């Protein structure tokens, strides 16, 4: 099964110091390598802060764009992974490792099929 692991970050705590960033990169990099070595890695990446987002809507044939994310909440999607594992227990075990490395909560969601 494919699972999304969404990294929830509190943007009000940004930016991190250089040392924090480096340490975090090292921890996350190690988990990423572990996922690749275990053959569960499909895709993963960090996102620019939510103020770089644009929301696109098409209503009645007209396109409207708004600056910024869907919702201006404190917690935003900071990045995500897509992994392929047997079941939720395996996905939860990887999420635990990612949550430890990123030091933020991870939301795990199963895909309803993939294209």
């Amino acid at each position, binding site marked *: *099964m494919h*699972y999304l692991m969404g990294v929830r970050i509190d943007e009000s705590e940004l930016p991190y110091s250089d040392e924090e960033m480096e340490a975090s990169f090292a921890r996350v990099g190690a988990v990423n390598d572990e996922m690749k070595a275990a053959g569960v890695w499909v895709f993963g990446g960090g996102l620019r802060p939510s103020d770089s987002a644009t929301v696109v809507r098409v209503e009645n044939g007209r396109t409207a764009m708004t600056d910024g994310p869907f919702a201006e909440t404190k917690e935003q999607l900071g990045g995500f992974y897509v992994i392929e594992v*047997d*079941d*939720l*227990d395996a*996905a*939860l075990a990887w999420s635990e490792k990612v949550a430890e490395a990123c030091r933020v909560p991870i939301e*795990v*969601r*199963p895909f*309803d099929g993939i294209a």
Partner: protein
Amino acid sequence: MVELRSAASPDPMDLTEVYRAEYGRCVATLTRLLGDIGLAEEAVQDAFAVAMEKWDSSADGPPRNPGAWIVTTARHRALDRLRRESTREARHTQALLLQTPDETEEVGPVRDDQLRLIFTCCHPALSPLAQTALTLRLLGGLEVPEIARAYVVPEATISQRIVRAKKKIRDAGIPYRVPGAAELPDRLAPVLTVLYLVFNEGYTATSGELVRTDLCREAVRLARALAELMPDEPEVLGLLALLLLTEARRPARVGPSGELVVLAEQDRTLWDRDLIAEGHALVRRCLRRGQPGPYQLQAAVNAVHTDGPATDWTQVLALYDQLLAHTPTPIVALNRAVAVAEVHGPEAALAAVEALDIPGYHLLPATRADLLARLGRTADAVAAYDEAIALATNDTERGFLTTRRAALVP
């Protein structure tokens, strides 16, 4: 859902009992065969509907092994149903079913199925209420209204939780297996909690009558199954011992007119000696392992209560000291205070009780009331009883508190 108390049935109790006893293990086995809890339930319910007609009209009555009969019939019904559907998923499930031979009396795999199902129902990705409701529904075979009554929540809430939990199990890929050794400590805890809560709800029902024997029996049955399956887990044995030793005293706990009888006033000849012997043996087995945990310690307390003609309160207090160090909750502290009263007197116990705050918990003012009465502070005791009576939701307990209060006011 199958209506078991059909008017046409000459002996509806038989089938109801078979249903209670066999529903859980049949659903567990069918879940393994079909790979889906919802399909398994439908198939088992279909089979019970067939049983209701067949067993009634047959001169022989129910078959010798009703569970195996239900499993076989459910498998055939599931196959029929799947043959009518032509989806890829249905064909896949059908193939799985055809590869599996008829099972009649294979005890081992059936037990494993139940264990798998307990761990699936009590998966930490499900909410605590969903865990309990699902366990009672799938393994206990209790109907939604019964579960709703037991937990004093609307039926719609329970059925919604069950539906959502089953959907999450399927959609999120919650596995149908016993967790590996590394995960087991984390995963066993919610299973033990659910069984403990089910028993407790049965032992002192939130509303109505004091005891709901069906819930108690179900919790004991599941705990026994768990202990048979995991004989090396001391807390599993501890939980089973705790439930057995508590269950053993149940016949003495309610008097002839339905009133509550406290431990000190219970007729010990009414206690179930076999259950006590079994519980004591389990506690001794736990002691030898030397890895005490909260359930083992509570079981040990109950072993002391049921050992000899009277309780050795010094031992009980020592056990509660250990339990409090392990689980420092106000409820444990309150129970410890009861032992303090017996060993060091009501004054010392009252000081401990007055330091506690457990909002909405009737046994806190009830214990305070008893201690105040023993200290001769009648007016304060009456006020504390009033507080406890207002908080108690169970009729029998409320009746007990009212009688105690009345005895103070001449």
